[in-house]
């Protein structure tokens, strides 16, 4: 007999895990490369994603190797150029069954996406495996208060074609991780534990005991369900455990780079129908740098704009959504201008990380940020010669100063994903599956 699938409704209107203390400067050795007790300084990983691709002729440097120069679209990175490795000539190797879906799933996970049978319903797809940031979270996010955080800036996403286009972080096919669009809300969530707890108030202990009873309910329910619903509830249990350890987490300790600012007021609401992209991304980038400096998390995904996104770049005088611009051959200058705008916002994040001291170096010295998009060029939905940046030294793992590494043999983009994972200390042998499977490193960018 077939079972009914487990449905869920939104109805409400209206201790145990060890949590690491944040880094203290005094705990580092004199070089700032390791803790005084010999433990290495933590490495961090982030994906930074924007929709609809670049204009290759204005993106890719002409020269390869160490002597590359900034192009029109890379020019905003001038102050962090030595931390940038430009990767070109790689190809998405999962089956190219649908524009944007292929690129997003390929560059973020290496697994072919799963088409959800429409049966007369609108086309949808979901990821075929975990996104690379979540593999990193499993490896380096287990001791921090937040295994990973999901940041987003533009709200003009394509929400009608399933999780593949809507989200960039996925624990698995049925577990996309929702983004936080609101900087003020992200601040509250990240830094709530900074507020002093009254040790005589039993509230947090009781909240944890409530979650324990919810876990019992969940296990009792699992016993009655089929395998796929049991797996969904396993993910739910994992989420409950995460929330439970957060409730009981020790308050982080402020240091010279982990300084609690005033709560931001930016909440990502449109003004006159216009998204405040610059202000939102600035606060989000500040919060990410702070979350890393305070060691609240070591992994993040940063969705500046979405796959097939209809973000309007009003600040540079544009009035059309970007996706429709990319498909108009006469508007490619506007697409280019939008890419430059995004690169300026990305540069702000990188400069912020570079300005955050950690020992004798900075956060960029100890991180790896993978930058890419859902297509190579939006006009033709291409997936060859993919635009990829790998930014940060990851503790000396990557070439510094960065180079332009170009594959002449259309190597697999998943190689770059695997290289990033290894750079931040994830002990994995492969990334992706089928054509997207990689067991090879992009040795060209490794120091």
């Amino acid at each position, binding site marked *: 007999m077939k079972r009914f699938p487990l449905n869920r409704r939104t109805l409400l209107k209206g201790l145990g895990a060890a949590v690491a203390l944040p880094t203290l400067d005094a705990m580092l050795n004199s070089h700032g490369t390791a803790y005084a007790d010999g433990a290495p300084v933590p490495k961090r990983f982030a994906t930074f994603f924007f929709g609809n691709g670049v204009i290759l002729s204005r993106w890719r440097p002409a020269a390869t190797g160490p002597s590359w120069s900034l192009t029109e679209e890379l020019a905003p990175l001038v102050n962090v150029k030595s931390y940038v490795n430009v990767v070109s000539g790689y190809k998405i190797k999962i089956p190219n069954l649908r524009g944007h879906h292929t690129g997003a799933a390929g560059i973020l996970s290496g697994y072919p996406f799963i088409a959800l049978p429409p049966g007369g319903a609108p086309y949808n797809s979901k990821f075929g495996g975990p996104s690379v940031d979540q593999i990193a979270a499993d490896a380096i996010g287990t001791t921090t208060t937040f295994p990973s955080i999901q940041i987003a800036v533009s709200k003009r996403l394509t929400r009608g074609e399933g999780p593949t286009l809507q989200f960039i972080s996925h624990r698995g096919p*049925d577990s996309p991780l929702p983004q936080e669009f609101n900087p003020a809300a992200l601040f509250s969530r990240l830094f709530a534990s900074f507020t002093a707890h009254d040790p005589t108030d039993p509230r947090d202990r009781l909240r944890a005991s409530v979650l324990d009873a919810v876990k019992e309910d969940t296990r009792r*329910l699992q016993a009655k369900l089929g*395998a796929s619903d049991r797996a969904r509830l396993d993910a739910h249990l994992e989420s*409950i455990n995460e929330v439970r350890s957060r409730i009981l987490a020790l308050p982080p300790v402020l240091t010279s780079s982990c300084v609690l600012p005033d709560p931001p007021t930016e909440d990502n609401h449109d003004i006159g129908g216009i998204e405040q992209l610059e202000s939102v991304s600035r606060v989000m980038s500040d919060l990410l740098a702070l979350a890393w400096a305070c060691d609240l998390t070591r992994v993040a995904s940063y969705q500046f704009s979405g796959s097939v996104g209809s973000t309007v770049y009003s600040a540079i005088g544009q009035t059309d959504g970007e996706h429709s611009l990319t498909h108009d051959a006469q508007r490619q200058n506007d697409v280019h201008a939008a890419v430059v705008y995004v690169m300026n916002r990305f540069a702000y994040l990188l400069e912020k990380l570079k300005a955050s001291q950690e020992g004798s170096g900075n956060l960029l010295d100890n991180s790896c940020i993978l930058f890419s998009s859902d297509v190579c060029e939006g006009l033709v939905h291409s997936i060859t010669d993919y635009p990829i940046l790998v930014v940060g030294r990851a503790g000396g793992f990557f070439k510094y100063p960065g180079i332009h590494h170009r594959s002449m043999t259309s190597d697999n983009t998943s190689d770059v994903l695997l290289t990033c994972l290894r750079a931040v200390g994830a002990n994995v042998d492969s990334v992706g599956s089928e054509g997207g499977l990689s067991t090879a490193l992009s040795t060209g960018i490794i120091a």
Partner: protein
Amino acid sequence: MTPPPDTTVNGWDAIGAAQLSLSATSVDKYESSGQQAAEIAMNDAGARDSILGCVPQSSSDPQCMNAFVAQFGRRAWRRPLSADEQNSWASVGNGAAAAYGDFYKGAAFVIAGLLQSPNFLYQIEIGEADPTSPGRLRLTGNELATRLSFFLTGSTPSEELMSAAERGELESAEGIRLWAETLVNQPGSREAMAHFFDELFQLRDLSQMSKDPVAFPSFGPALASAMRDETQHLLDSLVWDQDGDFRRFFDADYTFVNQDLAALYGVAVPPMCDGFARVTLPADSLRGGFLGQAAFLALMAHPTTSSPTLRGKFVREKLLCQNIPPPPPNVDTNLPNTEGMTTRQKLLAHRQNPSCASCHVLMDDIGLGLENFDAIGQFRTTDSGQPIDASSALDDLGSFTGARELGALLAAQPQLTECLTRNLFRAATGHVDTLGESAPLNQVHASFAASGFSFKNALVETAASEAFRFGAAQAASSQ
């Protein structure tokens, strides 16, 4: 603190909710919402004893705690609690009451907990063997009461409905039909169906819609909100006030406008304050029905220009339940210089590429007949300085000019109302209908047609259909 937003899959939040698991961020939000709801309930000294169902005799009153857990648990979980569950939650409540020396604070942790439990968050449908048909699973009475209540009222079943289900009153099609008729006439049903229409017609996207402020200075959040209200007013009038033929939603010669919309449409309205007034559209108007409303015309357009492709795609996918194949990979969509061309001319140039033409003709030819409506749904007679030709001929639907004629062509197609019944079923059950469910859904449609396309009839017959009451072979479900 608000609960986490839902994720739409295959067009419906309910389908996403039946497939995706909850992230830590979502669990976090349910936790805070649950705590907040509990505090509000227990801080209200006038209401809390009626929520508890008993008056605590002291700060620790295990008997009252037990009675409260049983009563509130049954309401929140839509079924009686097992002995294990009862003990587990009474112990949480007694422990918290002791810690605070305050019964109400203890009860608040029970409320917060029961509202975070998977038994509350998920619509659990385990089913039971159907004694009349060996090998088939049917929903239990409590499960069916829950499915019925969420479908028709958007909320948990009432005590009366749960008791009726436990007495077996929902076991026959006739029994569930009687209850469905009762629920459809309750006020919650209007709101639940407004939500259904918001999802089906993507009206929720209106609040996130961008338009070119230079080309459309009149456009802003207030106008976007009025667009949504206009569509809901027409539905409200047809479904609830008139209980009329639902197909008129697509070719009605009247609509509902406020001052902003009256200005947008260029129709005269009697002076009014803030409200909406019904206006009859001129007989020769190309406007009429949903496809002539600004909500549809503006949503299915770009910030500056109309989009015949998006408009046609919506009609095929959402109104007729047809699939449009994806664009082939690596197609060069580079067109000759289209400067100064009308949208029609640009799309026709696009069709020179045969690999684009086969699918675009399906979408574009619908939208080209709506070219007299610009990116915010205003009537226009020129595009790029040239007169607009808004005539269109479709192989499967016929020839038309403008929204009202297109609506009339669609209204004559059985696929339109068949697709609506399928969408109702998808929203109600959280899955795309399978082949095995097509026969019972065809019966729902036959009854819908026989009633003169009364939407209320479609609701009742969907609830009474075998596809709603019994387990079907689900491709995605597990053994």
